[in-house]
């Protein structure tokens, strides 16, 4: 279980996160929604160790991982699929996947690989092709596959729907939801598009200007019209 | 009130002029009151400063790390030597030739070379530019081997410095000198330039494409010290620097050793002091140009383009134009410095203008402080003084030559690294309170 307490992050004088507290429980999807610039990516990057928080703590399964390097955090079971292009186009599909688990034993790696190929069969077909030959949806599957190769107990997804057709988004998110349910993984899903995210998420938070303005059950957030108007703009 | 005055362009110009004249006066007084030996070092320092003012602009302000300036000095040096050797009247205009004309043409040669190199170099990112100019530093000097008849090949060209008779410092201009000299006295009418005979310089141990160091190219003597041009000629650390050149000179009736010359002419005229006075004058003129460029609009344009070409373009500055102009200015300065070096060495040769010289310029400007002209001047003094310091220290301790001769370069290399790591503003930056003030902190060139 990933526990975040009073997390604050600044870039120079710009405060991107203010006192954010959140628990990401295993076995389901937790959504983080908010307008562009709300601080969603900052939250995810801080959890993964790419950004150092100014104050606050992050615990993974009871261990304090605040301020650790990304390499160490991923070894403690937290894997991030960053926003945008997060595959390496110069490597093959197989290499992109292998990259995700280089530090694990080969048995662990093989097990993860079969699971990823079962989840995303297209990756098995394309494993020896360069990643830049994949379509946008396939590339997002590869990015998620690479993160799953790390054998995470908490999976952080930063706007996986970006630039993808709605049908494909739905497919991918439903897969992720099933994955969380079946494997007991904690999933933290960032979306600008609240409707999609709230469909697969059990609970969620709404970020605005770096602060949590609402948290609760996804259904409640989805039905709160005032909130939608104020922070989500639809 | 004072601030306002300083900001007005006219008064800034006047202040710069006053400061320059003051510096010139002090240096000239110094030159007149020290040993000829020290005048020689003064000349070298002024020559380095001239070239390094250009490095401040190119490497510091416009952020283009270039190693080509040694080769550009070669352009100036050879143009100076050739024009003074070949021409007795100025082409087209027809007026009689003198040293000032040679300086003008040397500068012109530098500008042309600067435009050519700048047109290519200004389009390139850092490491590519550094590599290209490295190629220039290594490749251009080998051109002399293509035109041995004209450029003297490996042996280079020997030239006679046109110093006036009648005593220093009274006689300053060529004209005065000419008036006081009998017309048949050939060397005072014009500088004599003669090619060295092939046997007068030790020939290089191998063909020069084969990795010759500058020193070897000229002298065939052990390499190592990349920073003292006079050693490039003689291969020996020289105490009376012009002696070495004299040894190989064919010009019999003119003792190139200044002290002897003074004795011969029967006055207090000293060659080294004359050379220093030329070097000081050129350095002051170039320094005056540089300070006005740097502290004016152009200086801000260069820095704006260095820090953020895109943002500069948005406010109407052409980044490519700014970068090329930095090249042109720095190669003008380099060529003038090269012409001065030719007069100090009374010699031009590929070995004197090799990669070692280019590296010295970079070392000097980095150590002194690559963001300020004062840093360039400090660096110039350092380039001349550090080897002497090492010499003294090692003399006291009785170190072997192999250590002594290479210690300055080891120090330079290590100091450059230390400065880059700990004090990017160099000595000047450290003195004036650091990098931060000279230069806005921002991350550039993230890939």
């Amino acid at each position, binding site marked *: 279980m990933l526990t975040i307490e009073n997390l604050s992050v600044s870039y120079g004088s710009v405060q991107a996160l203010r006192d954010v507290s959140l628990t990401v429980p295993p076995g389901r999807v937790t959504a983080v929604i908010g307008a562009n610039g709300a601080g969603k990516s900052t939250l995810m990057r801080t959890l993964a160790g*790419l950004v150092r928080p100014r104050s606050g703590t992050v615990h993974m399964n009871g261990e304090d991982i605040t301020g650790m*390097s*990304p*390499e160490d955090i*991923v070894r403690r079971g937290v894997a*991030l699929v960053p926003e945008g292009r*997060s*595959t*390496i186009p*110069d*490597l093959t599909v197989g*290499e992109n996947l*292998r*990259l995700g688990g*280089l*530090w694990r034993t080969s048995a662990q790696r093989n097990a993860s690989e079969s699971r990823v190929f079962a989840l995303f069969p297209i990756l098995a077909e394309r494993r020896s092709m360069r990643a830049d030959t994949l379509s946008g949806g396939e590339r997002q599957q590869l990015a998620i596959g*690479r993160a799953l190769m*790390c054998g995470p107990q908490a999976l952080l997804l930063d706007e996986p729907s970006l630039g993808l057709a709605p049908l494909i988004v739905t497919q991918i998110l439903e897969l992720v939801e099933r994955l969380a349910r079946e494997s007991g993984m904690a999933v933290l899903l960032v979306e600008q598009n609240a409707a999609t995210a709230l469909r697969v998420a059990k609970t969620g938070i709404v970020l605005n200007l770096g602060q949590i303005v609402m948290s609760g059950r996804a259904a409640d957030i989805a039905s709160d019209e005032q909130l939608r108007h104020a922070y989500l703009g639809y | 009130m004072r601030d306002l005055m300083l900001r007005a362009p006219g008064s800034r110009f006047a202040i710069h002029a006053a400061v320059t004249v003051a510096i010139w006066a002090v240096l000239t007084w110094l030159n007149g009151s020290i040993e000829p030996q020290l005048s020689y070092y003064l000349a070298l320092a002024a020559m380095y400063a001239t070239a390094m003012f250009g490095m401040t602009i190119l490497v510091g302000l416009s952020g283009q790390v270039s190693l080509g300036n040694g080769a550009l000095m070669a352009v100036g040096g050879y143009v100076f030597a050739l024009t003074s050797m070949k021409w007795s009247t100025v082409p087209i205009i027809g007026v009689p030739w003198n040293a000032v004309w040679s300086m003008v043409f040397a500068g012109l040669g530098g500008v042309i070379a600067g435009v050519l190199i700048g047109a290519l170099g200004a*389009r*390139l990112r*850092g*490491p*590519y530019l*550094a*590599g*290209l100019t490295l*190629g220039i530093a*290594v*490749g*251009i000097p*080998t051109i002399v*081997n293509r035109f041995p008849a004209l450029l003297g090949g490996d042996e280079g060209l020997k030239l006679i410095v046109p110093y006036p008779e009648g005593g220093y410092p009274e006689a300053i201009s060529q004209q005065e000198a000419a008036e006081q000299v009998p017309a048949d006295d050939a060397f005072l009418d014009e500088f004599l330039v003669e090619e060295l005979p092939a046997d007068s310089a030790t020939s290089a*141990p*191998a*063909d020069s*494409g*084969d*990795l010759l*160091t500058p020193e070897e190219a000229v002298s065939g003597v*052990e*390499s*190592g010290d990349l920073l003292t041009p006079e050693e490039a000629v003689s291969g020996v650390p020289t105490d009376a620097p012009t002696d070495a050149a004299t040894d190989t000179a064919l010009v019999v009736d003119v003792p190139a050793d200044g002290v002897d010359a003074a004795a011969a002419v029967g006055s207090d005229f000293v060659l080294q002091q004359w050379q220093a006075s030329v070097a000081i004058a050129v350095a002051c003129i170039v320094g005056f140009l540089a300070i006005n460029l740097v502290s004016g609009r152009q200086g801000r344009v260069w820095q704006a383009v260095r820090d953020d*070409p895109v943002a500069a373009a948005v406010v109407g500055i052409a*980044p490519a134009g700014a970068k090329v102009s930095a090249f042109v200015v720095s190669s003008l300065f380099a060529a003038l410095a090269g012409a001065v070096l030719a007069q100090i060495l009374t010699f031009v040769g590929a070995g004197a203008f090799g990669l070692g010289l280019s*590296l010295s310029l*970079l*070392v000097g400007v*980095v150590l002194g402080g690559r963001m300020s002209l004062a840093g360039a001047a400090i660096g110039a003094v350092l380039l001349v003084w550090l080897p002497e310091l090492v010499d003294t220290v090692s003399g006291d301790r009785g170190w072997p030559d*192999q*250590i002594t*001769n*290479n210690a*300055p*370069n*080891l120090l*330079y*290399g290590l100091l450059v690294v230390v400065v*880059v*790591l700990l004090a*990017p503003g160099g000595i000047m930056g450290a003195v004036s309170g650091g990098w931060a003030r000279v230069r806005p902190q921002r991350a550039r060139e993230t890939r």
Partner: protein
Amino acid sequence: MDTFVNFFLGGFANGAVIALMALALVLVWRSSRVVNFAQVGQAMFTSFVGLTVVDLTGSWILGLVIAIAAGAVLGLIIHFLVMRPVRRADSSGAIIATFGVLIALQALAAMIWGGDPRAYPTPVSYSGITVFGRVIAITPYDIFVIVAMVILVLILTIVLTRTKLGLSMRASAFNPEVARLSGVRVSRMLAAGWIIAGMVGAVAGVLVAPTATLSPNSFDIFLVFAFTAAVIGGLDSLVGAVTFGIGTGLLLSLVTGYSDASNAALVALILLALNLWFKPEGAFNHHKARSV
């Protein structure tokens, strides 16, 4: 025709060495985005180390092994002491620092071993082979050099494409962030790049030393050749470095053969300038050379 063939064959051995030196430049560039202008200085220094070992033990191969080890150590030292701390400074700083290292290494070598050119022995004969009663320009040593280069390139290829280390290094070069998120210790991969480049450069130095004589400055010109080859190949591309390293060697060998050796630097410069003018990104590259 005969002479052309001779020059051409001789060029292969030259090209092999330039290719290795270019490979070293590319390995460092890929890991650190720094052109290591000190690379030939390192190679010169390790060649002197190798020569010292040969002098002491009489074993050429031991000299090579120790030189390679010294290359690894030197690469690691420079990475940790100079290049890793300098990355925080501006981009000019990194370039200048490599030149500082070059100057220091050359001075140190001159202090230890003197400035006089030294002869480096060869493991096999360095005189022309006689074929059908005629002496041709290619020597057993040339063939040795070419074979050594091919073996080294094969080893490198296997390491980079077939091992965990290679995959980690490539991923770190292409996208450090994704590599870190995958658990790759990217800073160690930078060090690995410097170590491997130092070893490759050391081999290049030992191979070229017998043909060029060894002195503190004698490899300077190879920096120009190797940089030219690496840039034409695209700086990022190992294949490009090898291809154009050999190509540059062949061209320079023809130039040297038909005119004289002092033209080589100028021809390399012209080649480099033309390439930077017309195709600054190189032949095998996705990276930008131009700034404006």
